[in-house]
């Protein structure tokens, strides 16, 4: 299989994952479900950017995905702390 084909297949699969995460984000009965969905969406976006970098042959774009992944991690932790604090009260 050629590299563009693999990248396109990965993008297609990750689009499905992103759509499912969006559904969970909108429906998610509890706040924790929504936070998990947002984290999944963030990681999926990082993967999509990496696949796009491969597709466009632009190594610079990989760093964008790295930034998204690292900052999404901090965001998820902030949300987790927020939930934990809400339960204490």
């Amino acid at each position, binding site marked *: 299989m050629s590299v563009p084909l693999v990248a396109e297949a990965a993008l297609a699969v990750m689009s499905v994952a992103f759509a499912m995460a969006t559904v969970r984000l909108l429906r998610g009965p509890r706040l924790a479900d929504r936070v998990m969905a947002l984290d999944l969406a963030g990681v999926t976006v990082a993967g999509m950017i990496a696949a796009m970098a491969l597709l466009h042959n632009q190594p*610079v774009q990989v*760093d*964008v995905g*790295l*930034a998204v992944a*690292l*900052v999404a*991690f*901090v965001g998820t*932790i*902030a949300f*987790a*702390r*927020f939930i*934990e*604090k809400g339960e204490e009260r």
Partner: protein
Amino acid sequence: MNSLILRTGATFVMPLLLVFSVFLLIRGHHLPGGGFAGGLVAAASLTLYGLVNGMGAAKAVLRASPEIWIAGGLGLAVLSGVPGLVLRGSFLAPIWGTLGGVKVGTPLAFDLGVYLLVIGVVLTMVFALSEEGQA
């Protein structure tokens, strides 16, 4: 927040974020990145440190209050324009020199000012929000 997983994870991720922020800051002259993006990533790293060890510890790491960082960054950015005004007659005109084989100049000082400014601004917001949660 007291979680072993978070504590261990943050030990790896926080230095990684700081190194990445400096990388973004320095690369920003020719490629995507720069003081703003670098400062945001550095602020995220310090926020992570604050979430794990308490915001008081993050304030101790900063040494000065975020307002001082804002003032210092803004001052450095403004001062980086002065050499251009004096030597070329135009404010913020770039002046380049070589330091130990590396090309440095006033645009780097400007970017560094933006970097410090963004760290100060973001952490001001983060500290204000965390105090609101405790009250």
